[in-house]
């Protein structure tokens, strides 16, 4: 079978990409880039557009000039068309639709009362899949791109392996014992319940597996991470994400109403939202809706949310073993043999990256998604343009501004943290930083003093460059994989899957929300 097509389209796509890179480089598109707020992506715009555009032009010319001949060369060459086609769509999603949706969300916030782009999770993950679905259902994947589109799962698996670099064991160990126990029960319990119901209702193992991760752990990203583990079909991933988002949005509006009706405190509500709401974006939304003028609720909800994200490696491993056993059938099988033969190797890659990240080779060991606290002298010293050292310690004017308004701070912990900051000219601990973030958010002091607090916060909070690079790469691999997966979701395959996943996901979501409410109500006092 000959795979390459004699078509000029890869050449056209390549020329478009290179032209775009040239326009960015020459500054012609500076206005558009500024409007979209994508300035920080200019570097990757140039590298990716020139690279993929160049590859597309060379391969496109080769396809036109050389007669196609069956063999490995033909097979490999034919994949390039699909890769550049997906990348073209991914460019539009990441550099166009994603920031544009963010702008529209913020613009509509005063009228709607909430940011619809944030609430509906309309980021590149969801829009990547939607773009793929629209292309395949309203138009079609062109013949010259079909072979390469089958590389999308490779992109997704690579992204999942690299995802392991964002987490660290030290961060998990640092979290409060109660949050770990509470989240552990609900995460593992939810996954277990979905697996049990799915098996009883004879749902496909792949569908049950991906739904359990989505409902149990942290929503969309967990579903995406678990999908290749259980060999989920594209339509099953789409169903899971749809269920999580629909249920999450409902929870975001209902949780604060119930929380206020029951007279819950900040910590109780934060613990409940962080446990019971399925998706991270909606956890933050519910916490801010419950306490708009402070961050105590948000902080607690974030701690619970982070805890469940950190359960992801455990769930991935569990699902891998569960899936292998289920697929092996009900008969007595040699588990070791089955695991060796069928266990998804890329899961080991994910665990390996998690272990490497925990050793601190990519960032200080105590990091979460690359962010860490460091107030050492070295970390607080940067260099100016001439290479002279510049200290980030607060200056005399900064301290005067804080001293002048210190009396406005009433809470004891905030007074102590502020005192320590004034005494040392820098924040002395993560706790002090968190406490003073509350002062900033509650706008207790003037803007000038708040700016000083923000300056002190920025001086001690750092993002590891290696992890930041991993995040960028993961985002690209996911976008590539999800656009390609979306291109495999047809209307017929959605009809075939039926509505069962939505029903089961909603049932488990309700059980989780009510169960966590009962547990939080009886176990969580106002201090964790």
């Amino acid at each position, binding site marked *: *079978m000959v795979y390459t097509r004699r078509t000029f389209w890869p050449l056209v796509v390549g020329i478009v990409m290179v032209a775009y890179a040239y326009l960015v480089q020459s500054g012609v598109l500076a206005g558009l880039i500024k409007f979209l707020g994508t300035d920080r992506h200019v570097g990757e715009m140039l590298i990716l557009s020139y690279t993929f555009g160049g590859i597309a032009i060379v391969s496109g010319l080769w396809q036109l000039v050389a007669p196609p001949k069956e063999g490995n060369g033909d*097979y490999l060459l034919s*994949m390039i068309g699909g890769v550049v086609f997906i990348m073209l769509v991914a460019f539009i999603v990441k550099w166009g639709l994603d920031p544009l949706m963010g702008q529209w969300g913020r613009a509509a916030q005063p009228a709607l009362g909430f940011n619809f782009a944030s609430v509906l999770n309309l980021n590149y993950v969801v829009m990547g899949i939607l773009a793929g679905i629209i292309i395949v259902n309203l138009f079609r*994947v062109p013949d010259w791109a*079909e*072979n*390469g*589109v*089958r*590389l999308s*799962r*490779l992109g997704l*698996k*690579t992204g999942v*392996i*690299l995802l392991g*670099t964002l987490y660290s064991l030290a961060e998990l160990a640092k979290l409060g014992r109660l949050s770990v126990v509470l989240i552990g029960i609900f995460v593992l319990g939810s996954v277990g319940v979905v697996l049990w119901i799915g098996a009883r209702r004879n749902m496909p193992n792949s569908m049950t597996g991906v739904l359990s991760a989505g409902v149990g752990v942290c929503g969309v990203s967990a579903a995406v991470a678990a999908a290749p583990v259980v*060999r989920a079909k594209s339509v099953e991933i789409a169903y899971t994400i749809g269920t999580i988002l629909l249920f999450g949005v409902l929870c975001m509006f209902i949780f604060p109403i119930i929380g206020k009706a029951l007279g819950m405190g900040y910590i109780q509500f934060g613990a409940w939202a962080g446990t019971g709401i399925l998706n991270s974006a909606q956890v933050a939304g519910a916490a801010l809706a419950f306490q708009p003028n402070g961050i105590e609720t948000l902080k607690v909800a974030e701690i619970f949310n982070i805890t469940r994200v950190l359960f992801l490696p455990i769930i991935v491993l569990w699902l891998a073993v569960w899936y292998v056993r289920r697929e092996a059938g009900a008969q007595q099988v040699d588990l070791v043999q089955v695991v060796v033969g*069928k266990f*998804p*190797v*890329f899961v*080991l*890659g994910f665990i390996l*990256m998690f272990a*490497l990240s925990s050793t601190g*080779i*990519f960032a200080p060991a105590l990091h979460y998604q690359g962010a860490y606290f460091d107030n050492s002298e070295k970390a607080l010293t940067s260099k100016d343009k001439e290479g002279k050292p510049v200290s980030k310690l607060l200056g005399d004017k900064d301290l005067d501004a804080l001293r002048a308004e210190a009396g406005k701070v009433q809470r004891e912990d905030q007074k102590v943290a502020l005192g320590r900051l004034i005494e040392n000219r820098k924040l002395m601990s993560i706790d002090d930083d968190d406490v003073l973030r509350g002062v900033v958010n509650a706008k207790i002091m003037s803007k000038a003093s708040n700016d000083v607090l923000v300056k002190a916060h920025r001086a001690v909070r750092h993002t590891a*460059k*290696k992890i930041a*690079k*991993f995040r960028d*790469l993961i985002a690209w691999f996911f976008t590539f994989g999800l656009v390609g997966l979306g291109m*495999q979701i047809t209307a017929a395959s959605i009809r075939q899957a039926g509505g069962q996943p939505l029903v089961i996901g909603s049932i488990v979501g309700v059980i989780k929300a009510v169960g966590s409410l009962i547990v939080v109500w009886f176990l969580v006092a106002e201090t964790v």
Partner: protein
Amino acid sequence: MTDDKFDRGSALTVFPSDRYEDVMALVLSLAIALLVYLFVN
């Protein structure tokens, strides 16, 4: 896209098996991790 369109791999992948695809993803990831470790600072 259906299986019979391709005589290599399946409707979902260009590789001969899932294990093959996993190993390729692993190799690719390790190469990327090494490059990031060496060159990003």
